[in-house]
């Protein structure tokens, strides 16, 4: 299966929720030291629910597509629900197998989200390593 299939490229070319929020409750940015990719996520939270979300940054197809899919997934969800999202959920969204390097690209948006919203700084999937 090809990494560069239509669905990913669609997200890459027309990402959902791309941009920033004027007065976010949470705004967090991180980069992937391996490749310099950089993702920022802004959240507007109301009644413990994610009311609005935007992301911006630069990166490869995988990291930007993952950010686009992730933001679609979490809009309207409660912070508790979102906290449960795991590495496997991201891989399910991406829908194709990834090698270890590209895996980091795919997980960067979730890492940014979890660090910003819950102060969890480890890479998804490596919490207890």
């Amino acid at each position, binding site marked *: 299966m090809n990494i560069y299939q239509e669905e990913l490229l669609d997200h890459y070319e027309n990402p959902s929720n791309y941009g920033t929020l004027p007065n976010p409750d949470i705004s967090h940015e991180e980069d992937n030291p391996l490749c310099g990719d950089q993702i920022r996520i802004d959240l507007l939270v109301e009644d413990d629910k994610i009311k609005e979300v935007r992301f911006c940054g*630069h990166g490869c197809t995988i990291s930007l597509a993952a950010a686009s899919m992730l933001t679609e997934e979490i809009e309207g969800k409660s912070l508790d629900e979102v906290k449960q999202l795991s590495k496997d959920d991201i891989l399910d969204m991406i829908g194709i197998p990834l090698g270890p390097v590209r895996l980091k*690209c795919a997980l960067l948006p979730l890492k940014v989200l979890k660090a910003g919203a819950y102060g969890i700084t480890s890479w998804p999937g490596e919490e207890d390593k």
Partner: protein
Amino acid sequence: MHTSEFRPLDVERIRKDFPIFATEPPLAFLDNAASTQTPRPVVDAMDAYYDTYRSNIHRGIYRISEEATEQYERAREKVAQLINAPRTRQVIFTRNTTESINLVAYSWGTENIREGDEIVLTVMEHHSNLVPWQLLAQRTGAVLRFLEITDEGLLDFAQLRDCLTEKTKLVAMGHVSNVLGTINPIQSVIDAAHAVGAKVVVDAAQSVPHFHVDVQQLDCDFLAFSGHKMCGPTGIGVLYGKMELLEEMPPFLGGGSMIRSVERDISSYAELPAKFEAGTPSIAEAIGLGQAVDYITQANLAAIHVHEQELLKYAHQRLKEIEGITLYGPSAPHQKTGVISFNLDGIHPHDVAGILDTHGVALRAGHHCAQPLMKRLDVIATVRASFYLYNTVEDVDRLYEGLCRTQKLMTRRK
């Protein structure tokens, strides 16, 4: 040297020594600056050790241990000949270039570098020839100074004169840039450094595998390289040093093999090279490296260089046909080795390498352990193709075609 016997490479025959190229279509392996493939004779030499005389060296009083010691020391002789070291014991086996440079930084550096001394580097250094000097500077209060590069990716040699003063104690420089392929004017740098009394460490990780390097002619004080970038195995590297420097330097790691006698509180140390080879070394890997030295010298380093130059010229010409490509580094092939760094407009280097991978072309994308250079080039990362003796014009064609397809795929609707 046998320059009169120059024969061009028989690439077709060489490729038969590398099982990894046996598939159809063959892997187009263009990441040789990171690590090269291993030919059958090198693997066979290591297998022979494991299958027939596996034992520790230097201590055993039985036949196979003597043979292991002999083969290990034979490998050292081959390396010494390759770089024309005056004496075999000036060749110290380490794990890799990184460890060789750290050895110098800790052992020589801690003894000889004082607060206010200056260490001259360049902006194109690999992190392994940068971070050890940062650590040394932090320990001692020494100051790091950096030589810049021109927009062409060449060392700004004029700046060297201003940089070198009586404060300069050390110049540490890559012979060849792993990102740009630039061959630095290392001879002139060494001469200029010696004129102010500074020592010179040459990071030869990207030069020794690709052309003939002669430490006596260069008159460098230290030279470091890795086996795995020259058809050898991983886990074995080399540090060459001038005799009087190595003899005065304190040990780097303490342990077995590096001692003469040990009392409770104090020990005296073994002669070179054992003083710097504490513990059981990478025996099979050293033997493999010795075989790799034979392999590339039999292929002929001059012929390897010419072959890479031809591939480079062809690759430059083909890649320049691509609209929206930016090539980094010198444009004249004779100023560089077979390394090409580039970017395609608006396409992330990871995506380029990822798509090329699906076409069986192995490239590197990233900062190539040279972040200061990425800053200087004003890029986050580049894509890099790098050649060795087994690469072919077809590999370059596949690179070219893959890049064209990448552009089509990634700019469908833009």
